[in-house]
């Protein structure tokens, strides 16, 4: 009869089911923290105790978000200013650097490029104290401009890398043709390279945005109270006495929202930025 499956088909079917079951379990495991965060953020703090961790809120309590926004308020401004400026600067510089490193012969580039890349990997604790003294000496310590400078410079290696790998794929013939037509350094950039850079910019901007928005070490050691970005605000919410967990959870949601939105909407480019870190194009 047509409904009976062969042994082979039976086996394939079981395997398919097993695959979906495993994927389902993994999904549950991955999303359990999300469930907890949302549920806790919506609870009345008086009802939060260890025994009731997993239960749904008795009634939806949105006050936590208000409190969080009050605490975060100025910090969000700081984070936004920081991220926009640092991303802009490091992207532009990265694009120019990538253009030069991929299409122009610089004396010593075989050494200079790796030396620049190494900066991407150093533990930032290693340079924390000298950085601190430097910022103090140039009077940039404690404010957002200083933080912008820091993030721009330390973003240069990865942005240069991404753009360089991206531009390497631009055929040299295109540049040859344009330079025969009389284009110089800037002309080549303006007419050939830059118009093709948009995907590269998207990847770089997304990656830098996420990294800088989420960064904590510099945020906590290089700023004053009024220049603190949002990551520090979150750590403060959770670091106090007798933590009322609805606040840190609501804070976590608020702090994670911008990168998450970007990730969901532009995920493809996000992944490309990820993979660029392993020096694969």
């Amino acid at each position, binding site marked *: 009869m047509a409904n009976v499956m062969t042994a082979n088909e039976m086996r394939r079917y079981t395997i398919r089911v097993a695959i979906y079951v495993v994927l389902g379990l993994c999904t549950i495991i991955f999303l359990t923290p999300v469930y907890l965060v949302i549920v806790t953020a919506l609870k009345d703090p008086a009802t939060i*105790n260890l025994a009731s961790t997993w239960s749904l809120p008795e009634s939806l309590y949105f006050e936590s978000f208000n409190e969080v926004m009050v605490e975060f308020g100025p910090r969000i401004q700081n984070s936004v200013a920081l991220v926009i400026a640092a991303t802009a600067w490091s992207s532009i510089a990265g694009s120019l650097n990538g253009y030069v490193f991929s299409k122009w012969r610089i004396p010593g580039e075989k050494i200079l490029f790796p030396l620049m890349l190494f900066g991407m990997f150093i533990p930032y604790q*290693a340079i924390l104290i000298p950085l601190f003294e430097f910022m103090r000496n140039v009077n940039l310590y404690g404010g957002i401009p200083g933080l912008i400078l820091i993030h721009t*410079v330390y973003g240069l290696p990865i942005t240069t890398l991404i753009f360089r790998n991206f531009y390497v794929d631009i055929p040299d013939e295109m540049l040859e043709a344009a330079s025969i037509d009389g284009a110089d350094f800037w002309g080549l950039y303006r007419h050939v390279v830059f118009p093709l850079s948009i995907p590269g910019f998207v990847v770089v901007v997304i990656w830098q945005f996420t990294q800088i928005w989420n960064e904590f070490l510099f945020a906590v050691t290089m700023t004053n109270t009024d220049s603190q970005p949002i990551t520090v605000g979150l750590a403060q919410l959770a670091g106090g006495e007798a933590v009322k967990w609805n606040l840190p959870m609501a804070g976590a949601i608020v702090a994670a929202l911008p990168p998450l939105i970007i990730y969901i909407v532009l995920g493809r480019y996000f992944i490309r930025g990820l993979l660029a870190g392993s020096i694969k194009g």
Partner: protein
Amino acid sequence: MRSRKDRVIAFLMVLPSLVAIYIFVYGFIGQAIQTSTSDWGSNPAQPPLAVNVVKSYVGLQNYENIMTDMLEFSFRNSLANTFFFTIFFVVGCLVVGLVLALLLDQNVVGEGIFRTIFLFPMALSFVVTGTIWRWMLQPNGGINILPQQLFGLDPIDFGWVNSRDVLFPFEWGQVPTYLTYFGIAIIAIMVVNFAMKGRWRASQYGVIAIVIMGLVLMAGLWDKIWLPLDEAATEAIIAPKGFNAALIGIIIAAVWQMSGYTMAMFIAGIRGIPEELREAARVDGCSEIGIYWRIVLPQLNPIILSAMIILGHISLKIFDLVFAMAGPDNAQTVVPGLLVYIEGFRENSFARASAIAVIMLFFVSVIIVPYLWSQLREEV
């Protein structure tokens, strides 16, 4: 054509970046090394926070101090913690990432959605992750009471980040011995490898190296090279070394966050394998599992190596996650990244903090520099 003027312009365009990197990376590293050889913060006569502190050169004393002084057991524990954390974190991410990638390679419905779900933790900051998991791993709530709430079983009795259990205990003095065994094992593998490929010359060097290491070990010369603790017996009691169970919670949180990364890399790698290769193998009668084992996995070796390097270097400098999950005062989960913050910014021992930081840098360089070198050599 490319005029000389243009080449000068090109150089000038990258110059600011190069200068910035020179200052912010290499200049600062140099300064950190310099600070680590001073006594800033360790000299009771010179208040570390004064406007003009007099710092004197003390050579390698800070390094010796953190490796041998009885009160610096936090640093040695942090080394042990990093070691175990790195191993379990990297292996965990690789395994989970590989499993997920293989599962998603099976043409499942909604593959995009699954991928998005598994990858989203990467968009979070470590502070957010740490905060969430700290709440989940509260000893009297969260995960521990889940079996009870769902199935009516007993609640889990594990302190997670507050636990004081030590698995795989070992003594600090035994570390050189373990290192020697490890070195011998590596060399033996290399020797066997070369032997099988008929390159005898390299294996001769290998044999010599093994013999030397064995002799060093047996002659007890390690004790002279490896700085012995001031009070080895006391340390075994007051600060037992081993795999602190408190790290388990942090490892789980970190794997949750980063396995999406390895998964993405593996997916990209698997996609890069031409379908013809797999078809040909299928035609030759190879089973699906055989295809994975013989064709897909070997192709993924470079990716595995890449991922190990990247994850390894992240794990060596981990700070935010531990700070958010366990706080700065948890002796069981202390890592060097955290110690630099504590010693530098709370105890004002800037020289000691710099020494720890330089050691961190050293370990990171050991894995990154060969990797960068090999990657860039390939491109030529």
